[in-house]
């Protein structure tokens, strides 16, 4: 909870010694409340003051880190219930699961497939984040072997899924030094799992049935000195999950339930499309980590695209710098295409131009990051603006053939644009960027020859 200036003032010595650089303790307290200074500037603050202020400054949902190095996963620190209020910060981490029953080749294949998945989309690299290894047989050696295999096959951080303390220990040892997430502590093994998390300083999932029990378990883990926690209110179906995740998120933001201020994890299971359906719901509604129990490559792109959508700030469209972008080894004879500076649009168009294998120049217009039709409807992508960009950048010199290809969706601009760019030939491209390669091969090649 945020403290007011007066509340903070009551925690200070009230000696007005000025060592903090302010005339009075009260003045310093006001600055602290506005978060313009740090308590460290006062050498006389009591431990009580430090603790209270520290707790007040902590984010309502703890930041929890899993793994390390380049692929470290950080979840938590969310501040809102609805993304239009601010934005969601820490993208849902998506995990692919393997288990210790799988044949070694199958396990390796799945880990490799999941960890190597990587798709560029609108300025972001879409990748999976974690590998979950699940214990199924109560056999510590077998579990350790599966953990070792997963670890050797990729650099992604691991989640170790077992309720058996012996297996968990063997798993942690097999994953030594990589800071895996233990899943975890629940009814029956809580004490031992918490002790393990403490011994190895690794993050821990606490699992209770429902909101209250889960938070109680988390609070007891904190008391035992384990602070990096993730919650799993392991309740039945989709409706119960939505309820529990929503209530935990609200409790966390309101700081109304001790033990609720941690990120949430869920297992997305089921056959066919069911697992992906559950995962999609989790990405929308408050899951910080989603474990795909039956991961398949065709699930990755849709789910990671949804995550990109939900975690993109709706108030600030991703933009690219306006300008003339050469694609491939573009020269004087290369085609010139024009589009807007919405990064999704730029990305779609540039990928297809690359696929066409015809070196080109792409003129990006400043349309405040809007898509072609949105910008057109808003008057930010019209003949006048395009013509001005062409003349301002002296394109009649660098594009001696004076042909410009416009997006098919704004075909209606072509006449107007020809009027505004005397001597230029305006060509109308296809509507969908996917058709650019065939357009280049058929229409452009003919026009240019």
């Amino acid at each position, binding site marked *: 909870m945020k403290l007011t200036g007066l509340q903070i003032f009551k925690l200070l010595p009230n000696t007005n010694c000025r060592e903090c650089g302010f005339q009075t303790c009260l003045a310093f307290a006001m600055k602290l409340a506005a978060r313009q200074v740090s308590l460290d500037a006062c050498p006389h603050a009591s431990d009580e003051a430090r603790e209270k202020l520290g707790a007040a400054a902590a984010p309502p949902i703890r930041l929890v880190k899993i793994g390390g190095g380049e692929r470290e996963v950080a979840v938590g620190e969310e501040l809102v219930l609805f993304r239009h209020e601010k934005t969601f910060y820490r993208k849902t981490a998506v995990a692919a699961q393997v288990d210790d029953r799988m044949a070694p080749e199958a396990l390796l294949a799945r880990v490799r497939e999941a960890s190597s998945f990587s798709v560029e989309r609108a300025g972001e690299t879409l990748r999976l984040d974690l590998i979950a290894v699940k214990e199924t047989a109560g056999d510590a050696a077998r579990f350790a072997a599966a953990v070792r295999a997963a670890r050797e096959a990729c650099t992604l951080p691991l989640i170790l899924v077992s309720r058996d303390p012996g297996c968990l220990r063997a798993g942690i040892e097999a994953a030594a030094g990589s800071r895996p997430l233990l899943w975890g502590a629940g009814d029956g093994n809580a004490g031992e799992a918490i002790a393990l998390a403490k011994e190895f300083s690794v993050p821990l999932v606490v699992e209770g049935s429902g909101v209250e029990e889960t938070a109680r378990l988390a609070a007891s883990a904190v008391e035992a000195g384990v602070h990096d926690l993730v919650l799993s209110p392991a309740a039945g179906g989709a409706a119960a999950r939505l309820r529990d995740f*929503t209530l935990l998120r609200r409790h966390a933001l309101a700081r109304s339930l001790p033990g609720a201020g941690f990120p949430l994890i869920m297992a997305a299971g089921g056959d066919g499309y069911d697992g992906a359906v559950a995962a999609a719901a989790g990405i929308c509604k408050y899951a910080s980590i989603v474990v795909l129990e039956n991961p398949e490559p065709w699930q990755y792109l849709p789910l990671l695209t949804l995550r990109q959508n*939900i975690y993109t700030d709706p108030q600030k469209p991703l933009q690219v710098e306006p300008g003339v972008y050469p694609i491939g080894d573009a020269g004087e004879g290369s085609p010139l295409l024009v589009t807007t500076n919405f990064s999704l649009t730029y990305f779609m168009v540039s990928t297809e131009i690359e696929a066409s294998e015809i070196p080109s120049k792409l003129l990006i217009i400043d349309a405040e990051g809007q898509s072609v039709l949105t910008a057109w409807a808003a008057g930010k992508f019209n003949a006048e603006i395009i013509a001005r960009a062409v003349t301002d950048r002296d394109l009649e010199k660098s594009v001696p053939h004076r042909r410009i290809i416009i997006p098919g969706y704004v075909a209606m601009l072509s006449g107007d644009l020809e009027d505004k760019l005397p001597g230029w030939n305006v060509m109308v491209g296809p509507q969908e960027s996917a058709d650019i390669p065939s357009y280049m091969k058929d229409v452009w090649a003919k026009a240019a020859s």
Partner: protein
Amino acid sequence: MTAPSFRASGRIRTVRIGGTPADGGSRGEAVEVGGETCLPFHRFEGEMPLRPVVAWEIPDSTPVDWCETLREPYAGVFDDPVAWARFAVERGARLLCLDLRGAAADKGNRSAAESADLLRRLLGAVKVPLIVKGPGPGERQNEVLTACAEAAQGERLLLASAVEEEYKTLVAAGVAFGHAVTAETPIDVNLCKQLNILMTDLHFPPDSIVIDPLTGGLGYGLEYTYSVMERIRLQALGGDEMLQMPFICFVGAESWKVKEVKVPEEREPSWGDRARRGVLWEITTAVSLLHAGAAVLVMRHPAAIAAVEKAIDGLMEGTEPQRAQRTLRMG
């Protein structure tokens, strides 16, 4: 300790689609949507009496632009909308959306009389309620939908759609022949509210309006629609009567036009099986919009529809109500 709960001061209106014999129509059963006093599927703190509904899209003419994976399940009925409608109903469809795309000048230029005739044949062949979607705002759409409205008097269609520049004719047809109408605005709370006001100013009943917030597909503007729907819904539950209408989303059309559902596995091996990737694209679009408040989802692929129906069942399962003590700030 009790969690802060969300208490609504408004209720989403219930809209009824489909006229039964009691209404002078011939539908076996009407479909009702709306009625919530809570956020989507938050039945632990309010009421959500009605289940969201999936409407199967039935094109009036061979949809040549549908990709291979999408055509495959409809192989036997692809050229026959009436057989297509029966096919959907046999698979559990409770609502159909007849897409009169063929009335567009560049897609067949069918006359209003022909379209109305097709509608009559569909009404004769199946007993479920119908959404009728025109070829797009303008003169042509007005003509075609007016003819359909007249031909289906008493059947309480949902006509799609009225837009700010072109709503009067549809509203008049709805009033004259007793149909509901969708109100389409591009992803904006204020435009949405304004169109609802304009329509009700013409004495169009507010419980005959369904909001079309114009969704983008997954990866193509979904992030905007999702938030605009959440904002509209929060404002509606906060008491804004001119936003208390259920949502319709044309999920199928937006999902199946994107590149990611079409690229074959041979070209992008890591993307995985094209058919299932495409189906999941439609499912994922639908699931996220359900969480943003969608009540009617117009969809295409039978496997996607089945998965989304199952998802809705799961979300509608009985969850224990919790008593509200603290009230969240809304909006």
